[in-house]
């Protein structure tokens, strides 16, 4: 799990406290002007200006300008680790609700071992919770896979939701935050990019402590050096 989360972090966050220039932009606002720049995600070219296409944080990485989402619903992307609930079983896979506009589909071929089509519900029944990776996003829907470390059916523990936009913060730079919480509470934690968090520990007290720690992180949005603050929080609680 750790490895996959770190990859995620690198893709989505790009280093929370890096030295890249960032500022809040609103739709239609000119980010930079000049022919040298290239618009990336969430930005477009209008004449000689690069204009924001959505509300978020504008980031300049060399010549490339992009706008990072800070609010709004979860939009799945390839390689996102998500947590979802099985809502239906079809002849060749499972339909998984991942809290986004369209539900995910987990084909039977994507399971790590052979499963007989007649006893699919023994492997994953309706209502059970699974951690999966987004394999592809297309107009027909979202394909999932559970091949990978830390993926698969989640048993025991509990799940709760945080805002999907806070997930990079919960994970921290290269997984620093989530590893700290895991270490201090001794719990097994999986954070889905869709904002679902699964916690399983040895006892209920440590699970609740881990949940409180994660909720503490999600409340502190624009705080610098949050990992240090988290360490202090663990001293107090």
């Amino acid at each position, binding site marked *: 799990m750790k490895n996959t989360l770190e990859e995620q972090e690198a893709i989505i966050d790009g280093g929370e406290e890096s030295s890249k220039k960032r500022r809040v932009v609103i739709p*239609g606002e000119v980010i930079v002007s000049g022919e040298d720049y290239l618009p990336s995600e969430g930005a477009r070219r209008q004449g000689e200006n690069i204009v924001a*296409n959505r509300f978020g944080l504008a980031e300049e990485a060399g010549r490339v300008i992009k706008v990072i989402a800070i609010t709004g619903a979860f939009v799945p992307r390839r390689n996102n680790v998500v947590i979802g609930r099985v809502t239906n079983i079809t002849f060749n896979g499972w339909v998984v609700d991942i809290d986004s506009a369209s539900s995910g589909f987990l084909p039977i071929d994507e399971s790590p071992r052979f499963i007989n089509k007649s006893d699919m519900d023994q492997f994953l029944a309706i209502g059970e919770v699974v951690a999966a990776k987004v394999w592809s996003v297309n107009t027909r829907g979202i394909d999932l896979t559970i091949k990978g470390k830390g993926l698969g059916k989640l048993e025991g523990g509990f799940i709760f939701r945080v805002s999907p936009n806070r997930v990079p913060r919960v994970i921290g730079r290269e997984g620093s935050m989530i590893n700290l919480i895991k270490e201090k509470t001794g719990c097994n934690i999986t954070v889905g990019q869709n904002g679902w968090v699964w916690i399983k520990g040895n006892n209920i007290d440590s699970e609740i402590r881990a949940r409180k720690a994660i909720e503490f992180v999600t409340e502190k949005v624009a705080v610098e050096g949050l990992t240090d603050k988290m360490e202090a929080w663990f001293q107090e609680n």
Partner: protein
Amino acid sequence: MADKLKRIDGRKSNELRPMTAKVGVVPNADGSAMFAFGNTIAIAAVYGPRLLHPQHMQNPATGILRCNYDLLSFSVNDRKKPGPSRRSQEISKMTEWALLPVLDLKEFPNTVIDVQIYIIQADAGTRTAGINAASLALAHAGIPMKNLVCSVAIGKQDKDIVTDLTKAEEDFEGGEGPTDFPLAKEANTNEFTLIQLDGKIPPERVKDVIEFANQACDEIYEVQKKALKEVVEQ
């Protein structure tokens, strides 16, 4: 002309009521905002993109926008009968049309973006306050859009053009009678997404109305911009 005119609340002809805007007022929505023109207060909440039901309304080429405008029963002096009405359905539809030109929903096929607009206090100009709030809420929900939409109602007091009418001014019967002219436009452009007219106006004066609207929309845009930027800095 502008200075001699006496308005009921002492404003200049091109002066808006004090505006307030706040983003993120509904924690459970994907995006939300409040926008007020004086005593008119609108709240907008955006949900989605989410799967659209009934299924026959789904469009595989693009997502769709669905607005619902509701003037709440306690928002006016005489209790309004709650529930949808001919008026609210019409305003819902026209709000949709005013907002759709700035949105790009091609990324979200087969889905819907629901915009709920509630008028919690009404003193004329509810549809324009609703559009301003909805535009903020859509931006807050992170929906791809090329610009914000600003909306204002221009009206007429006898022969004089005035900005942002109150209910008392809207009901003013003297002279040429009441005229209400709601407009919505893409901020900082000349692209109008809504023009309605209720009342009478000489065609040659429409130019003045547009000029008043442009000026008012610039002010509204600044308020909207400030509200959106504030939400991150809290």
